């Protein structure tokens, strides 16, 4: 991992940084509780990055620290190559974020709320109100009072607020909350389109399936610490493998494989076997299983390496099997 100079003085330095978010030793305590524990996080530019963790793992706290909503107790951090909180005004100028449930002035319309937020940004922000509302599908309801909005509509308005600053980095905390399936689909498409424009989207979510569909890379946080991070494909490649075998005699196949290195965990099914192989097992193992069975006269109809889902991998690495995540 390359190290980067966080301190910055010139705008040109902003474009030199390859990380949209970079933290080193970031720590935040609430009394004796360490919500964010020595976090080393690198979010590459131009990708959708998932930030995953069980309830109470410190996901939202880390986002709050990054955005200057609360102070860190230790560590350094930068957004788009600009150190925060030292230069938070410059760093946040190109950052949009939703943290927790998006809430607004209920007595004002969605457009009026955006006008308030645009006024706090640069002059051009006001001119982006209509396009932002259009992009999140809220143009028709923009003049209704926010108090009449559903949760999903407030989520969309929150994303519209993020877009006012023409952000290079969007930090979205549970953006799928309150959205119906169609809304989730639209949100996913929007995130992908934002990434396609060269923006970085950092997504915190419990919906692992959505994250897997949307994000290129993830970080897993547990008990305040980042325990894994990297591209999803690389992370899952290192996960435990499961091979499904359709064969003529599952019971005989089980007795043959039980005497080999593949026999640690095998489930017998009506049409075949499910063989669980430890992480790091290569694809040669599949060929070896096939050879062993065929040599013993068992007809092998199908061999399939089952795709490990992000969810099952998440449960493996966080040791939270059985808990509601």
């Amino acid at each position, binding site marked *: 991992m390359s190290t980067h100079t966080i301190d910055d003085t010139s705008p040109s330095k902003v474009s030199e940084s390859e990380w949209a978010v970079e933290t080193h030793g970031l720590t935040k305590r609430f009394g004796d509780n360490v919500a964010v524990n020595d976090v080393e996080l690198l979010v*590459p530019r131009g990708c959708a990055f998932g930030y995953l963790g069980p309830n109470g793992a410190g996901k939202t706290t880390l986002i709050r620290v990054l955005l200057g909503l609360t102070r860190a107790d230790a560590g350094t951090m930068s957004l788009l190559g600009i150190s925060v909180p030292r230069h938070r005004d410059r760093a946040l100028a190109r950052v949009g974020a939703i943290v927790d449930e998006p809430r607004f002035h209920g007595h004002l319309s969605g457009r009026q709320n955006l006008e308030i937020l645009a006024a706090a940004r640069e002059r051009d922000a006001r001119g982006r109100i209509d396009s932002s509302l259009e992009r999140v599908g809220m143009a028709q309801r923009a003049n209704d009072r926010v108090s009449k909005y559903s949760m999903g509509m407030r989520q969309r308005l929150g994303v519209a607020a993020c877009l006012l600053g023409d952000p290079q980095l969007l930090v979205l905390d549970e953006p799928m909350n309150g959205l119906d399936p169609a809304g989730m689909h639209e949100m996913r498409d929007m995130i992908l389109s934002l990434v396609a424009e060269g*923006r970085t989207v950092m997504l915190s979510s419990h919906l692992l399936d959505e994250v897997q569909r949307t994000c290129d890379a993830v970080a897993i946080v547990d008990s305040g610490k980042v325990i894994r991070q990297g591209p999803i494909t690389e992370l899952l490649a290192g996960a435990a493998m499961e091979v499904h075998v359709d064969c003529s005699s599952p019971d005989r196949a089980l007795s043959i494989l039980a005497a080999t290195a593949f026999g640690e965990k095998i489930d017998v099914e009506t049409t075949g076997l499910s063989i669980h192989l430890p992480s790091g097992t290569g694809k040669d193992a599949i060929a070896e299983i096939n050879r062993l069975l065929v040599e013993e006269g068992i007809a092998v109809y199908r061999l399939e390496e089952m795709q490990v889902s992000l969810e099952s991998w998440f449960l493996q690495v966080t040791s939270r099997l059985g808990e509601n995540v």
Partner: protein
Amino acid sequence: MTSVASSPAPATAEGSNPVARDNRGSWIPNGAMIRTRIMELRKRRGLMAAMIVVNVGVPTIFLLVRIIAHIVAPKSYGPAGGYDIFSNLVVGIMYFFGFIVAATLGCTAGSVDLTDGMFRHLVITGRSRLALYLARIPAGLALIVPLVAAGFTVVCAVCVFAAPTKIDYQGVPVPHGLSATGFNHWAESHPKEVLCGLPYNGPIGVQVPCYVNGQGKVIIPRGTPGFGHISPTTLKAEALSVAEQNYTAYSKLFLYPSVPLMIRTGLWIELEATIGFIVGLGLASLMGQRTVPVVLMIVLEVILTPVFSRTAIPHLINAQRGLVGLAMAHLEPSALPRGIGGGGGGGPGGPSLVPESLTVGICVIVAWLVGWTALGAWRMLKRDA
């Protein structure tokens, strides 16, 4: 830790620096922030309705009823305007309730971003938290100051243009603006009204049981001798004695408020409303909520200020002098009577105030304005969003 290969930097707005254009780190709020803050407060219909009712509606309706009553039955109902109406409306309603409404507006402005969840969105824009706080001050004052001015203008207009033609002095109608000599001449020509209506401290040679009724007529009870047996010369001499003792009090009465008095009074109630707003804003920002600060502001105005402005406690007198309501009472135009709250220090007849010099009073007011602004801003800077 596994590092992730990064993609090329995005093309969108790369290298542009919006902060350089909008001076986002500055503590000075921009015009758009103030305008949108005004809009946010103005759209609070309940609060705005209360502000309009108290500052404009109540005085207007009160004066309107008086005008109609006077037109319908002029003998039963006196003129709608005049100095007495002016002073009572200003001190009794506009000063007292104007403070409470302004404080409520301040408490609202100081807390709604937090309670509505907008504070977080605003902080994420990168805008200076101090600028976010300071934008509320001109925005709130832009609402409260014109409203107070509008209500006060209505009161002034009615009190001047619908003023009585004669001064009602102790129930006796007396021409306005008489000099001491003129007042004496008037007394000599109206000895019965003077002897029956005006107060006199000392021995009097004429002993006639009489009084002046509500319409300014002398009433002598039946069976009493009346003034018939007293010579005109004696009557004039006695009336002159009474008049000489009453001229000082008479000279302080006006048909309607003078222009300088109206200007001083207007500035005084505007200052009171400003104090209410600024203190409410700071207190609500400090506490992060609206209800309790509003209650505390009402307690300050309704209980603490009247009690500690009028009752000197020797060991606490310097602390009492730190009360902003007492300072405001000492700044009150001297021609006004004393009010319910802190106001009304200069008028005749009221209980005395805890003594305080004008300089100390001004310092106290400035300290309250600056102190509460600093406290509110400090909390805004340190608060978790």
